């Protein structure tokens, strides 16, 4: 390394870490894969931290929790979670998770992916899983851009923003994810930012214990691409913006929760309703039609140790 380019003072550890100190989230991560690939100031790691806290709080048997991701920066979450984890194809985390859940209903299946993955290439799967009320917990880290590929326009990118593929500014209207989720039938819809770590952890814990299609949008900074290109500063500046612009409005009408480049961010839990989920509906219909002839699904062909 070239010594001239490194400011050694930044490498100093400011506080002595006692040797017996334990990072409470370590058991939930594949520490043999660290360091992760996310940039300084990126919010994805923050959401993973919240997720691990939610797992602790939920009291779930972690052998029965699976994480499914698509492709992109957030798509890498599955690879760092010390759980049964699947890094699938672009946009297809939800249909993969659908098969996983239906073949092994005792699993809690969490879909953890980004806005481009879930709402552009995967948009069709999202609305259909919500319509069916498939028992999946979908966490969307929304950084308003395609970050992994270099900061192109996403269906969530707000108007006027400059991106790699909108060098003169975005003019397409963006999706309002929470309104879309509610309209498609989600049982639970919330939005937080990576500034709202407590609320986000609580929401994640809540959905881990709620049946049906649950959706949490997390606004998350992308300093490397989205902010740099738009002169929006560093990760910390995004935090300041989230703090200043966010308004907690639980139960707000999702149709009034559009996002813009630098306007108000309505956060909170917007929808929490009970609808019978896909598996319950399936079984109820079959029992109604077939009576005793209906055989409860035993989809798995194998038990461990057989």
């Amino acid at each position, binding site marked *: 390394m070239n010594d001239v380019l490194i400011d050694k003072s930044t490498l100093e550890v400011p506080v002595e870490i006692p040797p017996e100190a334990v990072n409470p989230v370590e058991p939930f991560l594949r520490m043999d894969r660290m360091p992760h690939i996310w940039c300084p100031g990126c919010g994805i790691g923050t959401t993973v931290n919240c997720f691990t806290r939610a797992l602790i709080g939920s009291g779930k048997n972690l*052998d029965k929790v699976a994480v499914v991701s698509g492709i992109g920066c957030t798509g890498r979450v599955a690879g760092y979670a010390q759980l049964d984890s699947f890094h699938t194809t672009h946009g297809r985390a939800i249909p993969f998770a*659908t098969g996983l859940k239906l073949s092994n209903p005792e699993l809690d299946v969490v879909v953890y992916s980004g806005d481009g993955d879930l709402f552009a290439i995967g948009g069709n799967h999202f609305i259909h899983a919500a319509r069916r009320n498939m028992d999946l917990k979908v966490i969307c880290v929304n950084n308003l851009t395609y970050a992994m590929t270099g900061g192109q326009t996403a269906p969530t990118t707000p108007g006027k923003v400059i991106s790699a593929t909108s060098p003169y500014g975005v003019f397409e209207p963006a999706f309002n994810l929470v309104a879309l989720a509610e309209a498609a039938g989600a049982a639970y819809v919330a939005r937080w930012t990576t500034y709202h770590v407590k609320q986000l952890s609580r929401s994640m814990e809540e959905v881990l214990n709620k049946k049906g299609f649950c959706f949490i949008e997390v606004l998350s900074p992308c300093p490397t691409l989205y902010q740099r290109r738009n002169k929006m500063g560093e990760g910390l500046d995004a935090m300041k913006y989230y703090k200043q612009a966010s308004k907690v409005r639980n139960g707000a009408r999702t149709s009034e929760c559009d996002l813009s480049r630098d306007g108000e961010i309505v956060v909170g839990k917007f929808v929490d309703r009970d609808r019978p989920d896909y598996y319950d509906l399936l079984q109820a219909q079959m029992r109604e039609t077939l009576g005793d002839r209906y055989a409860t699904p035993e989809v*798995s062909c194998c038990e461990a140790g057989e």
Partner: protein
Amino acid sequence: MHAEPKGVLTGVHFLDGDHACCEGTLAAGARFAAGYPITPSTEVVERFAWRIPTVGGVFIQMEDELAASIAIQGAVWGGAKAFTVTSGPGFSLMMEHVGYAAMTETPCVFVNVQRGGPSTGLPTLPAQADMMQARWGSHGDYGIIALCPNSPQECFDLTVTGFNLSEEFRVPVMLMLDECIGHMTEKVVIPEADKIEITPRRLTKLAPKEFRLFQPQGDMVPDMVKAGDGYRFHVTGLTHDERGYPSMNVETQDRTVRRLQEKLKPLANGRALCETENLEDAEVVVVSYGITSRVAQRALQLARAQGVKAGKFRIISAWPFPEQRLRELAGRVKAFVVPELNLGQMVHEVKAAVAGQAKVIPVTHAGGSVHKPEAILQAIVEAAR
């Protein structure tokens, strides 16, 4: 192990190929199917949707073929034997997940009831023009298995075989029907469950701490686990090491991708499935598969009646291509005649296997009907001259 009796409709039936294929999936132990409607294949999952609630499983109609072809893979990692069904346009969409199944070594079955293409083509009429797509349709290097039944009975039998091979080799298996075979109704005998051999999933016996998800065993195929059993494993379509972790370097890529192809070698050689007849004295060998093999059968009869020494080589396992068997034949025959319902696909494989030792004559047909036996006969007679 043997088939579970619950799924086996033992008896003598009068079934079309699509329905027989469905009974094959149930006998093979499939308890999960995801589909999307498309002619002329839908009858397979229609019957599955009708049968599965009393057998004990799940059918889900997905929003498109992309979803259907990945939902089955989620189901497999959840512990199921699973399949999807489609035809040309849907098969094109599924290519993304043929690659995912190959890369993640997910055992699963794709049924393709072929129709005329390209694009929407001939929805209700036959072709065999997806043979190269079955082999090469997804990007990158990988291997798959493809089987070509030529009767409803074989639709049943080879579906069971297909599931068994997919479990043994951990690859996607394609059942390459065509519209004629799918919609042809014939006698189908379904044996008793204890007469049907089933290959179980190759679940590891190792404890989670010792287990590595992509550690090849003696046959180059890794053992498997399912979600929920405490293994805390990771599956990715990225190039990965034996732990399943992404490892994007030249060495891992080479090791992984070569193994994905090489593990299937036994099927290209000694274990290739084919049906032969009158090869002992044959001067001309007709190489065919699927519905075309039944037309070729008539042409072969007519040729023998004229005194032409013609023999039959019916390809059953089309991929990996049975190159060894054909190469052995090549030295002692004059010519190979290759009729296909396409403008020449498997004929290129025949040429490669024969390697110039004999003439190779394609008999092409763009699809929409079957060949006339006379067209194949003419090629045989000319080849024998």
